[in-house]
């Protein structure tokens, strides 16, 4: 992720140490200056995100990274950045919560990431990678989308992906979209009227209403244009597993095992978590008879699955919070118990 950021032209990083993401600032502390950028170890996550507010307003591709308790502290700044429509990339390598929690992998910050987290009506573009290569690729895309939409992008990863070592192809960076000129950044007002970056709208009285209308319009456009999802063996699937990030990756293993046993099981793995890829779920609701949500949290992601599939099929749940992760064999067992019964109706497992 850190190397992808450098290659994508990130020139400013600020962060505060927290496990399990320390590798990112440690790497960038020497790598970023080598590439002509700036690394600052901030005094807190609050300060770090506000440095990003400044560096982004000054025109730099900017990034901060943290883990759950630190990301809670960043919420103030995230709200300001979203309100001021500044681009930046924020990584959350999630760990167990609530509170100090633990340092094991978790997906417990899903709501915070996709529903808001800070104050006011705003949206982050949220990406849920499951593989190191995907994390690398999405990090580059994150900078593009942030600039293109002038919106903060969050990479919602977890402690397993943050610590895992696996093969990676260090592909070069090429922008995927034509990026608009940064005609809003602060550079000193030489030869032009001064610019102001702000989030306060007092006059006229409905100025903030209009600003919110404008933001919502942008969010609708993003929803319309941006949706990434992996669909695996869904075409003929009777049971569809829905899972993202690391739980999606584990669930894929369960699908492979189930297929070897001749069970018609498929996987929908949303990669953009906001915007949530609705269409695959609408289709699945027509063809599958049941769904199973697997998440490393206590029932957050399932809400978006139910909304997207409009509760057209029964949705079962397999998830726990606190640094727990599912085993593919457990998922397989649940899927087997969900198979249509030959004899009397059977009890389905609820975990």
């Amino acid at each position, binding site marked *: 992720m850190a190397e992808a950021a450098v290659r994508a032209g990130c*020139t*400013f990083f*600020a962060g505060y140490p927290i496990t399990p993401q320390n590798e990112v600032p440690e790497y960038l502390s020497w790598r970023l200056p080598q590439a002509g950028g*700036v690394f*600052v170890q*901030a*005094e*807190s996550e*609050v*300060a*770090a995100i*506000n*440095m*990003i*507010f*400044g*560096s*982004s*307003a*000054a*025109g*730099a591709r*900017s990034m901060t990274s943290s883990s759950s308790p630190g990301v809670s502290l960043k919420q*103030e*700044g995230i709200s*300001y950045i979203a309100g001021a429509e500044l681009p930046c990339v924020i990584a959350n390598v999630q760990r167990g919560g609530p509170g100090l929690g633990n340092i094991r992998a978790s997906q417990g910050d899903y709501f915070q990431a996709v529903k808001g987290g800070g104050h006011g009506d705003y949206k982050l573009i949220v990406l849920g990678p499951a593989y190191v290569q995907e994390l690398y690729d999405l990090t580059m895309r994150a900078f593009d989308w942030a600039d293109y939409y002038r919106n903060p992008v969050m990479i919602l990863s977890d402690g397993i992906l943050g610590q895992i070592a696996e093969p990676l192809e260090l592909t070069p960076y090429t922008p995927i979209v034509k990026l608009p000129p940064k005609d809003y950044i*602060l*550079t*000193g*007002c*030489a*030869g032009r009227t*001064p*610019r*102001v*970056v*702000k*989030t*306060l709208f*007092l006059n006229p009285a409905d100025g903030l209403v209009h600003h919110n209308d404008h933001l919502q319009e942008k969010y609708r456009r993003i929803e319309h244009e941006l949706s990434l999802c992996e669909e695996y063996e869904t075409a003929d699937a009777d049971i569809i597993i829905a899972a993202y990030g690391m739980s999606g990756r584990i669930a894929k293993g369960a699908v492979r095992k189930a297929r070897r046993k001749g069970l018609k099981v498929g996987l929908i793995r949303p990669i953009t978590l906001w915007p949530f890829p609705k269409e695959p779920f609408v289709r699945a609701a027509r063809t599958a008879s049941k769904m199973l949500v697997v998440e490393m949290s206590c029932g957050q992601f399932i809400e978006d699955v139910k909304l997207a599939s409009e509760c057209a099929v029964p949705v079962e749940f397999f998830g726990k919070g606190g640094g727990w992760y599912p085993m593919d064999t457990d998922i397989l067992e649940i899927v087997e118990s969900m198979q249509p019964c030959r004899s009397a109706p059977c009890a389905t497992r609820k975990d």
Partner: protein
Amino acid sequence: MATFTRPDTLKDQITHYCPGCGHGIAHRIVAEVIDELGIREKTIGTAPVGCAVLMYDYFNVDMIECAHGRAPAVATGIKRVQPDKIVFTYQGDGDLAAIGTAETIHAANRGENITVIFINNAIYGMTGGQMAPTTICGQPTTTTPDGRGAHGEGGPIRVCELLSNLDGTCYLERTAVSTPKDVLATRRAIKKAFENQIAGKGFSMVEVLSMCPTDWKLSTQKSLEFVNNDLKKVFPLGVYKDR
């Protein structure tokens, strides 16, 4: 013959400040200094949360409005990305010495090459006169009706003294805007704080003792006396660091 004109750095705008408030004087001084140094077109200012939040409506420079207390962190981000620009913060006492204490101390300690204008009016102006970190002992506010110190509020924080311990700070001076002589001293200090940044010397802060007649519930005349007779005793004027 010299005529009194508006500095280029100030827009032709009537400010929202109350009669007798010190923000208007401090604004004018900052604007005059920016004019005099010829840096208007390379200056980036950061507005605080506080009575001066709308200062970008008055200043003719690029500006960013920060969250309450975070201006030194925001300024750090800007200055590190554009080291050739002149970056300043302008903050009240609640902003700089309460909610933003950490950002202030650490920006100072890193020796960020920025200029900090600190308006110490010993009260929370914008929110209606609550206790500030710099409210002096015995001073009544809306949240210390019996005067500060009666119920475990502690005493005023002396920011210049506090920061003077840090190796990263270059220049710290406390001035006032309650007499013509003080206004001139403030002008000289603020000019120096900007010159230091131009010379790349590091963190410079001018703490300006300022009036808030509305929330002190004093007349404009009595407010000047409060600065001269009371605040200056607790917050001695002078240079606390110059290297």
